[in-house]
């Protein structure tokens, strides 16, 4: 039987056809000594099918905490004994956050709310916020507001939200161990509506939540089937008070295997480093950017802090990877 790296070189690099699930399992199981070769191949795939540019994004929490859902990784659930309290960001502060993001050279600014789905108060805040940002800044605006109804999808598209984030979070087979207050199918339905409405779809999840290697491969292929424009890859950062608060962070080498494998499963998508990379990878994050990653969230996250944006921008400069310009998104 041909080795998975040889198979991937022909199938993915030459022909642009992503790994299937069985192949993804093989990639996720390559021995430690072959991880560098796996990453190098994933980097070649990324360069060939996506180019050398890196998409930079900033995010901010518009509505923090008090969420009625029980996503076991999340410190913002109101169902857990988490130290995170509810907070709302006002419009001037939201615009200031967008300014800070734009100043890094980012082309994306994502407005996030910890909710099951947006109510009218939140939709009003989003309408006002999107308009205020668009009036002042040249930056693409994304939103992540939970599960949507068709009318909400249509309205977000109409007011100029160009990308919507809604993560599947993990494999379908593991989802009931992560969330019990809604289903995988409900998440999938929102993703489908977003894409049909003409917004770009951002859909990824969190690795290292206790899923098996097989489930990690299952997740990669379920994402690939959804054909998202962007896949944010988070690594579990165990949050105090949550059901996953005592889990150990994923090992760096497993995280790098996953980065490369997700790239080989989705050769053309934007694959973004998101939360948890600081504790999981540390300085090895640069290896991930030379192993399939072609987008990063810079600066802070929703409730935790990231590296200063300048450090990530310096890393990209060191790697000679140009930051994607806004004009090329339009």
């Amino acid at each position: 039987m041909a080795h998975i790296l040889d198979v991937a070189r022909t199938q993915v690099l030459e022909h642009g056809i992503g790994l299937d699930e069985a192949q993804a399992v093989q990639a996720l199981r390559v021995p430690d000594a072959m991880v560098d070769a796996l990453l190098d191949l994933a980097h070649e795939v990324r360069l060939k099918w996506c180019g050398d540019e890196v998409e930079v994004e900033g995010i901010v929490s518009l509505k923090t905490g008090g969420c009625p859902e029980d996503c076991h990784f999340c410190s913002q659930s109101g169902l857990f004994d988490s130290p995170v309290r509810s907070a709302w960001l006002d419009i001037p502060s939201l615009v200031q956050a967008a300014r800070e993001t734009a100043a890094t050279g980012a082309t994306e600014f994502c407005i996030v709310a910890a909710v099951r789905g947006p109510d009218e108060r939140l939709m009003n805040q989003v309408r006002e916020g999107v308009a205020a940002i668009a009036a002042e800044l040249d930056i693409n605006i994304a939103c992540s507001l939970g599960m949507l109804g068709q009318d909400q999808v249509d309205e977000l598209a109409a007011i100029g939200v160009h990308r919507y984030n809604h993560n599947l979070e993990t494999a379908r087979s593991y989802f009931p161990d992560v969330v019990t207050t809604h289903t995988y199918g409900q998440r999938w339905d929102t993703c489908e509506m977003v894409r049909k409405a003409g917004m770009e779809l951002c859909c990824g999840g969190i690795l290292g939540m206790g899923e098996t290697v097989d489930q990690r491969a299952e997740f990669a292929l379920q994402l690939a089937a959804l054909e998202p424009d962007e896949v944010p890859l988070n690594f579990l950062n165990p949050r105090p008070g949550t059901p996953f608060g005592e889990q150990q962070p994923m090992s760096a080498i497993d995280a790098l295997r996953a980065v490369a494998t997700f790239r080989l499963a989705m050769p053309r998508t934007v694959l973004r480093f998101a939360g948890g990379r600081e504790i999981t990878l540390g300085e090895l994050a640069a290896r991930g950017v030379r192993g399939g990653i072609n987008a990063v969230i810079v600066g802070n996250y929703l409730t935790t802090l990231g590296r200063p944006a300048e450090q990530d921008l310096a890393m990209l400069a060191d790697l000679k990877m140009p930051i994607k310009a806004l004009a090329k998104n339009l």
Partner: protein
Amino acid sequence: MAAHAMTPDTGDASAYCDHCGGRDAAGDHGACARARELEPPRYCTRCRRRMVVQVTPTGWSARCVEHGILNPY
């Protein structure tokens, strides 16, 4: 009531750990300090109330209902 800034050297400002809310004098908070490198404070160091914390792309602010804003941005 106007919010006022707290500083580490005011009165009993360090009575409680701002990460876990435990008494500063009781136990080792080294792990809390390491965690705080990538997290904003969550507890008021004077009264251990949970604070309302807003993280932004380049900073954070935290407000105690009793003791005001810790670090306005």
